[in-house]
């Protein structure tokens, strides 16, 4: 495929608000995880909570979308000069020629949970939450559309933990076919009871900070995050989107295919669309949730597909698993890795599971990173692999 230029990007997560802050956390190996202080009912786990969201306010005119998820979206839009870049692109191309494709797992379900906690005796919602848009999953896309003043294609993708990776693939199609000239992609997921107690019900949350690929890993740490990227056909400098691959496992709703069949298909398709060989990949940001099954299956796929010189790590020890926002957060982390020529290691891992090949690194490692892959896999067996390049020609 013809590469697309990423002409702007932003991130807000527990390990850093803004690219500069996240870069420093990655370099200094400073986790954003902390003991769960989010839920009223006790839940023994660690979370990636973005500080200060409670005290934020949305600007006038966007009050209809008021909720934690919109506040996090607004914060991420304001980071790294993204808002201004996006507005400049919209000015250049037209309000209906910049597509909006954003991903989320639970959108603003936290607002619905709050309404149910505060139901009036007559069974009605409290008045401040009687806003239908925050009780439906397009809440995220609709908010960003309104915030940026967009008037074109505007979609919220919900494929669980692959959501904000798949948005790159969808936007690439729209631009390639001429249905849009540029696209704002990204994703936002905020902490809520549904995911904390939901993953708890599946015995998937860790009582300690998550340790991806560690032989003694005990599950995931859930985080919240938001991030955006601006995709255009050309730009002065990268990073560049070189390839995307999408597939399904056709196996199980909440566990990956035992041989990682779908994961392998997605990675191979991304490589093939970029006309690159596995040996060209310098760094892989793994999905690496620290669940038993994901890490085992993913490690095996990487061992089988890539040469020992390719470095691979999971950065969820910094951010937590941002679910529907994991794709965009980890895309931004691969941009940072290419920008700084530093492959982040796997924070919190001490003794790697023997399933890991030589690719998986624990410590940060300085190295020239020209081509990087980012993996995202979701419930329902939805897989997406994105291939990014420091340069257009790979």
């Amino acid at each position, binding site marked *: 495929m013809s590469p697309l230029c990423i002409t702007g990007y932003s991130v807000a997560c527990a390990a850093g608000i803004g690219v500069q802050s996240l870069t420093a956390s990655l370099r200094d190996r400073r986790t954003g995880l902390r003991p769960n202080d989010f839920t009223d009912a006790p839940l023994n786990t660690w979370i990636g909570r973005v500080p200060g969201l409670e005290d934020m306010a949305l600007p006038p005119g966007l009050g209809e979308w008021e909720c934690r998820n919109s506040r996090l979206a607004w914060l991420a839009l304001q980071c790294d000069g993204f808002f201004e870049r996006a507005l400049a692109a919209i000015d250049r*191309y037209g309000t209906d020629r910049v597509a909006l494709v954003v991903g989320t797992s639970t959108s603003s379900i936290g607002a619905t949970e709050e309404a*149910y906690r505060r139901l009036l005796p007559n069974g009605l919602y409290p008045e401040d939450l009687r806003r239908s848009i925050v009780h*439906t999953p397009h809440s995220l896309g609709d908010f960003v559309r309104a915030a940026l003043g967009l008037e074109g294609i505007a979609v919220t993708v919900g494929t669980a933990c692959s959501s904000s990776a798949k948005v790159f693939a969808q936007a690439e199609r729209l631009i390639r076919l001429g249905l849009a000239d540029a696209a704002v992609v990204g994703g936002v997921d905020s902490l809520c009871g549904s995911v904390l107690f939901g993953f708890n019900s599946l015995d998937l949350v860790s009582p300690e900070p998550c340790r991806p690929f560690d032989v003694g890993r005990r599950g995931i740490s859930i985080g919240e995050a938001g991030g955006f990227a601006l995709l255009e056909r050309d730009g002065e400098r990268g990073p560049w989107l070189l390839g995307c691959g999408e597939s399904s496992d*056709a196996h199980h709703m909440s566990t990956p295919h035992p041989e990682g069949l779908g994961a392998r298909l997605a990675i191979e398709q991304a490589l093939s669309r970029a006309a690159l060989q596995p040996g060209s990949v310098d760094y892989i940001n793994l999905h690496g949730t620290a669940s038993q099954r994901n890490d085992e299956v993913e490690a095996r796929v990487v061992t089988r597909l890539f040469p020992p010189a390719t470095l691979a790590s999971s950065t969820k020890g910094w951010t937590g698993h941002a679910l529907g926002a994991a794709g965009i957060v980890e895309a931004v982390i691969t941009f940072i890795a290419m920008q700084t020529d530093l492959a982040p290691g796997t924070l919190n891992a001490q003794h790697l599971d023997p399933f890991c090949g030589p690719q998986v690194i624990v410590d940060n490692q300085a190295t020239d990173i020209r081509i990087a892959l980012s993996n995202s896999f979701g419930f329902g067996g939805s897989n997406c692999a994105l291939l990014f390049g420091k340069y257009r020609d790979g």
Partner: protein
Amino acid sequence: MAEHGVSNRTAYVHGIALWAPRLPGWNAAAPVLRGAAAAPEQTAPRPAATLLAPTERRRAPDTVAIALEVAARACESAGADPKETASVFASAHGDLAINDYMSDTLARTPTLISPIRFHNSVHNAAAGYWSIGTGSLQPYTALTAYEDTFGEGLLEALAQAESSGRPTLLVAYDIEARGPLATIVTSRGIIGVGVVVAPHAGLNPLARLRWGTVRGTAGTASQTRNSELMAGSPMAACLPFVEAMAIEEMCMVGLRLSPTLLLQMQFDFPSRHEGNWP
């Protein structure tokens, strides 16, 4: 500023399916949609999710049951092999019944959340069951665009078909809102639409579409004569499309993508040209 292309792209509809409480299946729906028959007063029971194992079938959420039904019928109608067909699942609200259950349980006994209901709460649950049930490794996506979900879902299916050169399945559905959520979110009835679109005519296309995006406005609520059959559902937005498919006469249909952008489709039918396209 680049202009939107007028209807300068071509696609073919290879298969169609529809299910609504008073339109249970395409064969029952088509005569009603073209005004040749009255809709039954009786509402049909929810379709059985026959793709699933009998134990899973009974406890399948409404979203899964309706989505699997129209997905299977659309593929049958197109003669498309689900294993070879990428899919786009589009639902404005997702599983409103599970959202009601989750929010209610979280307010009372959060640690008693059902793990199955939790993994069924993801927006791509129906898509996941479809992929598992058919053994399809082809990619699917699951999306929402609130009141514009049907139009955006169809646009994405058309874009995928044109981009891949292969048939693509659209599965669009919404279910009834429940509990306190129903006081805020309007969604009535279980309604699903399945469409298989492809970039080439193949052996037996049902319709040809000349399509593109154009600036223009359309209401969000469909105002066709069949509106009452889908009243209160975000899927009522599909009516202009399914009516055009049922009437089988050349026509132009615009589906809303945003308040000022339309997916415009010029319909033409092989039966009007004895199989020879003009």
